[in-house]
């Protein structure tokens, strides 16, 4: 059975319903495990001290913030090309999750940077890019909310997601250029320390797994809710049509 089999909302709901508790449960286990393992059982970094432990939150959330938008882009393209409602609703469901991920990335990044920069916000290029991505999420979700007809909303938000993706990449380079332009680069920008000593590496992997599972679980849950709401609305519309037909004059 091909993947497109899941384009059918009923089939999707039936398949997904038993999975959600497991995915979310596993996510919780991974998060707690990485929290305990990372915070208590790994040594402090010689330079940054304990703040390096924020890595277990910042890196996975930053990763998911970007992947969430990418997933929405792919779902939007699938909607525009193959008109599968499930993918359009999955994109709508993923947006708030992606937005929370970007908020976590920004908050943890700011807290992490404070000892280094002396302030919570020093317009570090990485955090600034996430701030812009946060604005994109806001605009995307606001457009969904503002359009009444479900399919029109799906079309418009898909176009916005595609154009937004191009501009998100442009903004990333513009911010890098802009940051060099102002002062010669943040002394210890969060970009720099991607190399991670392996003692931190394994808990980080578990934390990333936790965040991925959390994202997946929440998107499946929210997509199922969107499908249920859409089905309820469709049933109401059909009942309206029937009522109109029997009484003879159109509603």
């Amino acid at each position, binding site marked *: 059975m091909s993947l497109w089999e899941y384009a059918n909302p009923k089939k999707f709901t039936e398949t997904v319903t038993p999975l959600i508790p497991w995915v979310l449960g596993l996510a919780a286990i991974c998060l707690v495990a990485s929290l305990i393992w990372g915070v208590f059982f790994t040594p402090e970094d010689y330079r940054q001290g304990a703040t390096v432990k924020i890595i277990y939150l910042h890196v996975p959330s930053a990763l998911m913030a970007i992947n969430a938008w990418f997933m929405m882009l792919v779902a939007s393209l699938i909607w525009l090309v193959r008109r599968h409602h499930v993918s359009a609703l999955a994109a709508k469901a993923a947006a708030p999750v992606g937005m929370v991920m970007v908020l976590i990335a920004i908050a943890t990044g700011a807290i992490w940077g404070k000892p280094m920069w002396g302030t919570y916000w020093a317009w570090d290029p990485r955090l600034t890019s996430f701030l*812009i991505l946060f*604005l*994109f999420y*806001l*605009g995307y979700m*606001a*457009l969904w909310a*503002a*359009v009444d007809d479900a399919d*029109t909303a799906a*079309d*418009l938000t898909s*176009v*916005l997601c*595609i*154009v*937004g993706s*191009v*501009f998100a990449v*442009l*903004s990333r*380079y*513009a*911010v890098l*250029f*802009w940051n060099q*332009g102002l002062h010669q680069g943040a002394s210890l920008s969060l970009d720099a320390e991607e190399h991670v000593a392996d003692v931190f590496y394994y808990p980080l992997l578990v934390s990333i797994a936790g965040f991925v599972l959390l994202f997946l679980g929440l998107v499946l849950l929210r997509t199922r809710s969107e499908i249920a709401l859409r089905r309820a609305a469709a049933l109401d519309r059909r009942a309206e049509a029937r009522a109109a037909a029997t009484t003879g004059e159109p509603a």
Partner: protein
Amino acid sequence: MRALLLRDLRLAVRAGGGFGLGLAFFLIVVVLVPFGLGPDRALLSSIAPGMLWVAALLAALLTLDRLFALDHEDGALPLLATAPLPLEGLVAAKAAAHWLTTGLPLTLAAPLLGPLLALPPGAWPWLLASLAIGTPALSLIGTFGAALTIGIRRGGLLLSLIVLPLYVPTLIFGAEMARRGAAGLPIGAALPMLAALTLGCLALLPFAAAAALRVNLR
């Protein structure tokens, strides 16, 4: 396409057309800045290019939501859509009309308002050049936003929320070019990046805006 452009220009210039609206708003914002930051010339001249760019960007945003709304409200949009002119052409004409009625006047007015913010005279040509290259991108991105929010009541607010983040690259490269010009530094990558951005917008955005328009016409 020319017919639509000429009509929109004529409409903008006629009474109540809103031609001076963007310009007046630009002037007000620039005048407000010293009230907010104090009259210290050294401070003002350091932020002048960037502030002029931010003010121009906000002024461009202001006149966007009327772009399609007029034709939508008086029922002209369907007849415009069935014309031999492709939707991409219609959108490009609308963007050009917006630029000619808002972007260009802002570009010409900005240096005149420079002294209000103690902009060094040497900076005028760079400010003018950066705005001249950058404002078309603002119009194209804005037209895309306007096409997205046609059928939405109170769409102006949503339009700003969608369009402003898209303006960030143009603002960064444009303001950077103006600032380096003002400080006498070599312009470097700012100019080519700004030009590439505007050309990219010219090439891609009419198609995205036309797609959004086609959806909203349904």
